[in-house]
């Protein structure tokens, strides 16, 4: 092939061996889509329902508030819980907005931008949750070592402050690690396909 004109001619003449019949095409319209954005929104609803159902399914949930009360952290625990719900509702709203906005009929650039905005929202949601969890865990631990008689006992048994800090650090890291893993497997699965889009968008803007 010598030039672009010839290439275009060949391109225009090409025929695909496989031609689908009306019946086959009809069947395709009934297949399940692999569209991933909607799943991020559905997952946030599922997460909200789990949070709402937590007091019903976890027998220690209410008791844990009594423990926070004994540490004089009742108000703080309620504040963190409510902030968690507000965060979840706020991000659910953002996911829903993106879900509605994302349409395959928009231009490629607009489409990529909305998808990336969903990805950013999920990342922010993760970091906001991690931050909240970290603050809550640290405050409870510090207060527990000050006020919980069973933990104060440890200090009296000559267990150094550094060892206690080390134990707190390990526990916090474990909790955050588990939380990170959960998000990696739950949301990460749906975010992975969106990751590459950033590069594509950059290329379009060049």
């Amino acid at each position, binding site marked *: 092939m010598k030039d672009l004109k010839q290439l275009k001619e060949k391109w225009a003449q090409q025929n695909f061996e496989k031609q689908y019949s009306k019946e086959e095409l009809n069947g395709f319209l009934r297949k399940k889509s692999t569209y991933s954005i909607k799943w991020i929104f559905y997952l946030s609803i599922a997460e909200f329902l789990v949070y709402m159902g937590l007091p019903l399914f976890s027998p220690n949930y209410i008791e844990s508030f009594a423990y926070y009360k004994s540490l004089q952290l009742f108000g703080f625990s309620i504040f963190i819980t409510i902030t968690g719900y507000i965060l979840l509702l706020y991000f659910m709203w953002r996911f829903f907005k993106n879900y509605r906005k994302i349409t395959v009929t928009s231009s490629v650039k607009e489409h990529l931008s909305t998808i990336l905005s969903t990805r950013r929202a999920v990342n922010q949601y993760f970091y906001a949750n991690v931050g909240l969890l970290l603050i809550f865990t640290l405050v409870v631990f510090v207060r527990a070592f000050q006020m919980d008689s069973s933990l104060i006992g440890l200090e009296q048994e000559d267990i150094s402050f550094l060892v206690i800090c080390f134990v707190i650090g390990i526990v916090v890291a474990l909790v955050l690690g588990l939380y990170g893993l959960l998000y990696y497997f739950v949301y990460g699965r749906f975010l992975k*396909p969106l990751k590459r889009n950033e590069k594509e968008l950059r290329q379009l803007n060049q």
Partner: protein
Amino acid sequence: MMSPPKNESEFVVLLEQHQNIIHKICRLYTNNEVEHEDLFQEISIQLWRSYDRFEGKSKFSTWMYRVGLNTAITLYRKEKKRLNTQPLNDQFTSIQQEDYNPKVDEHLEWLYQKINHFSEIDKALVLLYLENKRYDEIAETLGISAVNARVKMNRIKERLKKMLG
């Protein structure tokens, strides 16, 4: 310009008539016939789902490019089956695609193999160039300015020219 039919059977007729557009997109964005069929199905689903938003302002075929490319670039992923590494040479590329649509014209097969490692956007530009789309249509499909479309199209033409030797 035809007004859009509102029922499924009429949509399927249009889909059947224009299926080569989807085949071309699938051939560009997939590496084997299984993936080709998967992507074809996904594009058909997305076309049908968004069909009520098709107002007939543009041609049905133009609208198909947009939905098809959006689906191929952003939604459809078969990462595990794909080889994402850059092909080392032509031999590698031909091994990767050796069982893909063997009856296609040898020149076109060569072209498909050459552009297999292009970026998703460059593949879209090649498609729109070879389909003889106007700059304003390219700009509208990609969501960029007509000037930018012209610049990008010139770059792609140069790249293709170089490939042809």
